[in-house]
Every structure is written in structure tokens, then in C-alpha cells.
């Protein structure tokens, strides 16, 4: 009886350790419907985004990579126009993500070929991925990712008039030297910019 209890305790102990290890991973992937984070937007819609100036220390404090230097046209003062639509509400995703809009096209970015992402969930209003090929510098190309949303995921649905919107764009350039004097390194290099959004509104300029 004593040895049976001992084996039972050892088994429970091992199971608790294994389950804990599993849940440390699973806790970041809990299921649930995507949250309703945004309100007041038509579907489909077009929104315009006017970019502000990134913080001087964004490379270390926010992006973790050097600036992309505007090689795709994303510079302070630029206005981007997003064509968006929203699919059905995702039911089996991490319940902290938002029911987002899928980017169909972006005007104002040069050399971008978007990859369709029809999933309707994201950390913010929309996420977009694609490939960048510089129209002016041969061989300056790589992958391209963008996130647009509030800097904090809100508890209650918000509209475009709320404050604190940011646009984050990152790229992985396959050959830094092909991009002229934009980067100091060589070969594969990651870059990014974290633009505060000065103004965002539904419609076109």
C-alpha cells in the first residue's frame, strides 16, 4: 500500500511538471473569438494615415533594428491609403487579438507587392505582409511587414478618433549593399520604423 501511494505521488508529481511545461506554452495560444476592438468603420473601407516622426531612439527602444531610411516611401509626412475589408469574426484564435481588417491594397508605398492575408485577426486594426523590390536600386529587395493599430490594445472598442495610433513597418533586406548608402552593414539586414500616426481618418485625402 505504501509503495502504491509512493508511485501515485510520483506519477502526480511528474504529471504536474509536464502539464505546467505544456501550459507555459499554451497560455499564449488560448482559444476564443477575436475581440471587437474597433467601432464606427464601414466594411469595406478606405482609410488614410498621415505619418509622424519616429522617436530618435526608436532603433533601440521600439524596433530593435536600424531605420529602413524610407526606401519604400514610408517617411515622416507621408500619407498612406489603405483599402480594407473585414471577413467573418474568427472564432478559434487567441482571445486577446482583435477582429481586424484585411489589407487589400496600400497606396503610398513604392515597390511593394502585397501577399493576401485573409484572416481578419491581428494585434491592431490591420497587418500586411509582402515583398519589397526597390524601383530605383537593383537588387535592393526583401520581405516587408506592417502593423497599424493603437499602441495599446484597448479593453473597449475604439474609433479612429482615439489617440495613440502607431504604424510599425519592418523589412528584411537580402543584400544591404544593394540599397545604396541606406545601410552600413552587408548581406541580410533587418530594419524597421515605428511611426506615430499624426492623423487617421476614414476616406481619402
Amino acid at each position: 500500500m505504501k509503495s502504491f501511494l509512493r508511485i501515485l505521488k510520483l506519477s502526480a508529481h511528474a504529471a504536474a511538471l509536464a502539464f505546467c511545461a505544456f501550459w507555459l506554452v499554451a497560455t499564449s495560444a488560448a482559444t476564443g473569438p477575436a475581440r471587437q476592438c474597433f467601432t464606427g468603420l464601414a466594411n469595406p473601407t478606405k482609410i488614410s494615415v498621415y505619418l509622424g516622426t519616429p522617436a530618435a531612439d526608436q532603433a533601440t527602444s521600439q524596433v530593435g533594428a536600424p531605420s529602413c531610411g524610407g526606401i519604400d516611401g514610408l517617411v515622416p509626412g507621408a500619407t498612406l491609403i489603405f483599402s480594407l475589408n473585414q471577413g467573418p469574426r474568427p472564432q478559434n484564435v487567441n482571445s486577446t487579438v482583435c477582429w481586424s481588417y484585411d489589407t487589400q491594397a496600400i497606396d503610398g508605398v513604392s515597390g511593394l507587392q502585397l501577399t493576401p492575408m485573409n484572416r481578419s485577426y491581428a494585434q491592431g486594426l490591420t497587418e500586411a505582409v509582402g515583398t519589397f523590390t526597390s524601383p530605383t536600386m537593383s537588387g535592393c529587395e526583401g520581405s516587408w511587414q506592417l502593423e497599424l493599430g493603437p499602441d495599446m490594445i484597448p479593453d473597449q472598442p475604439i474609433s479612429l478618433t482615439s489617440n495613440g495610433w502607431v504604424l510599425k513597418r519592418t523589412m528584411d533586406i537580402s543584400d544591404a549593399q544593394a540599397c545604396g548608402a541606406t545601410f552600413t552593414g552587408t548581406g541580410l539586414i533587418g530594419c524597421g520604423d515605428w511611426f506615430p500616426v499624426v492623423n487617421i481618418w476614414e476616406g481619402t485625402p
Partner: protein
Amino acid sequence: MAGESSSARVSGRHHRSSIGTRPRSGEFFAPLPLAALALIVVNDVWLKPAFHSALTGKLSDIALCFFMPLFVSELLGILFGVSPRARLAVGALITTALYTAQEIVPPFTRFALAVLGAVGPHLGIHRAFRLTSDWTDLFCLALVPAAVWYGRWRLERIRPEPAPATDGCRTVADAH
């Protein structure tokens, strides 16, 4: 005196302050850490989807900051026989470093998501992984010292297996 001490050891009466006797486990497989683990499961599976709020957002973090130092510590004890004091400190350090970096260092958050994305499918988790970055979550780190204190308290209460009689005789003999 030596004889009294040895007989007390054999009878197990004086083992309460025995963090120095190096039990290899016991800090995680205990009521409070297991309750914290249960809390994170209940919160993730039921409470978050039902009542998404700032409170449910923090509950999992609170639970995690309590049981993770003890979990890491117990693994270090079982796998490597690290002493209680050292492994509790390492568990606290690892938890604090990982949790802080995940909350406020975007490159680490991306790295963590990449790791989770690689490990998840091997555990049968095929959904997207997401980590929220919110510096106010760092308040939950106050639970880390509490976990260390609890771990030490637990380990001090654990009585080691009674020493074999021959050991006891040898000790008495040695003492004389």
C-alpha cells in the same frame, strides 16, 4: 550533546530547519503553486473568453509570476541537484528576466513568438501565438519574491528520508 543530536536526527525531530539538507523537490508540487497553475488554466480557458477585462488580463500574469520561479527551481533540483537556495534564486532570476523582456523588449517578444511558433505544433497547439506588451504587467513581478519566500518555507518543512541505521551508527561513532 553529540549523542543527543544524533539520536534526534535519527528520530527526525530536528529536521524542520533543514534547507541545508538539500531536498531535491517540493517547492512546486505544493498547494499554492498548483492552485496558481489551476488559476491560469481556468482564466485562459473560461474567464478570458467570457469576461475579457483588465482583471482577466492580469490574472494569468499574476499566477505565472508565482508558479514559474518554483517550477524552474524544482526542475533544477530534480535534474541537476542544485541546492534549494541557489535554485530558488535562479528560478526567480529566469522568471524576472524572461517576463520583463517579453513585456518591454520588442525584439525579444518577436523571438519568443518564433520559439512558441516552433514548439507549439509539437505539443499539438496549431493556433497563432500572441504576446501582449504592457509595462503595467511588470507589477506582477512582485509575486516573484513571494514565490521565493514560499519555496524556502516549503523546503524547510520537508523532512528528508530517515538516514539508514548504519549511517546513524557511523555518525555516533564518528562523534565519539
